[in-house]
């Protein structure tokens, strides 16, 4: 079992003044952000601003050099690598621009895989996988290898795979970055619609304002810090 207990204080996940460098290159310089339970947050910013690094730190993929990551009221940055790995397998879902599917496996295999890793019985895992593929409009595609699917279909399989474990937080890094405009919209419609139905918290990294417009709130990462875009008349400066 994960060390994280299923309690839901507000916010659900939070970065507090985190820093992260790769070698001598600083990526985050005291970034702070909080995400409420069930919220869909867009993280925007120019290339190299640190937005993907922030997502990786929030998801426990990279431990920050300094600062705190708090998930469900507990310090994620203090967990062991094994515990963070378990968390990522059982509580967090991921959709990346590409690369997270196994192209030699079928769509159903790919969606069932994380369930099987979580010790769900084979028949139940595949039933769940078929159900998610249907919800994503991929009826009849379950037996196709994902390497043979179109970009949009493959990305919908990736969304199905991420949501199949019923994650508390879905981390999406440029999920439509390799898709054309209309296909990207279809993927975002499904991702956001299903996340809302399931009450899943979403952290969505994107440089695309039209993708960010699917979120309920947005923050901008600049030079490794998070700038919150506040309504007129309030301080919208760097935090």
């Amino acid at each position, binding site marked *: 079992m994960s060390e994280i207990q299923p309690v839901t204080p507000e916010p659900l996940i939070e970065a507090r003044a985190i820093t992260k460098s790769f070698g001598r290159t600083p990526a985050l310089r005291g970034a702070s952000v909080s995400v409420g339970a069930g919220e869909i947050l867009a993280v925007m910013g120019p290339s190299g601003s640190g937005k993907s690094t922030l997502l990786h730190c929030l998801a426990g993929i990279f431990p920050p050099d300094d600062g705190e990551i708090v998930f469900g009221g507990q310090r994620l940055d203090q967990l062991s690598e094994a515990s963070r790995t378990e968390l990522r397998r059982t509580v967090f879902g991921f959709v990346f621009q590409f690369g997270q599917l196994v192209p030699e496996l079928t769509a159903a295999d790919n969606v069932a895989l994380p369930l099987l890793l979580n010790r769900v019985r084979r028949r139940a895992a595949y039933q769940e996988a078929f159900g998610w593929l249907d919800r994503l409009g991929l009826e009849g595609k379950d037996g196709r290898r994902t390497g043979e699917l179109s970009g949009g279909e493959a990305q919908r399989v990736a969304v199905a795979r991420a949501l199949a474990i019923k994650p508390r937080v879905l981390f999406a890094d440029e999920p439509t970055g390799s898709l054309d405009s209309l296909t990207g919209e279809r993927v975002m419609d499904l991702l956001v619609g299903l996340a809302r139905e399931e009450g899943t918290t979403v952290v969505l990294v994107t440089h695309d304002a039209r993708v960010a417009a699917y979120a309920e709130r947005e923050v*901008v990462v600049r030079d490794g810090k998070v700038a919150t875009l506040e309504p*007129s008349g309030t301080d*919208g400066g760097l935090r």
Partner: protein
Amino acid sequence: MSVPLTLLGLLEREPSHGYDLKRDYDRYFGRGKPLPYGQVYATLARLARDGKALAGPAEPGDGPDRKRYAITPAGVAEVGAWLAEPAEPEPHLQTVLFAKVMLALMLGRPAGRYLDAQRAAHLRRMRKLTEVKRAGPLVDTLLADYGLFHLEADLRWIDTTSARLSELAEMVRAS
């Protein structure tokens, strides 16, 4: 673009004659459409009437109006409120946003914060249009798409301008 507010903003830098204001307006904001002298003096008279500017005594010399105008505290407050208030997000805002950024830099006001506020206003509008698309019929989707693509173009300009603010500020200071 609001000519009275832009002239008022130029007055905030320093008390000026109508001639100086016209020269600077044409240089920064005219874009090939010089402001007629008549409009400059009529606007200054209205600003003085409304308590946003003060006209000094007439000075000796040629020309239609040799008064030096100075901004009042009410005028300063009006310029500040105008700069801070995001414009209604709609297509073809470029001239208003451009004027606000340039004036903010001239006056040493926080241009980056104004751009952030405008950015947030644009994204709020884009969220509403996205919801329209998700819930509405195809005709609504097409109309929403039109708005979204134009707002996205504005946002790209806002992002690029944000990245160039330091360079722009140096240019404004040097000129």
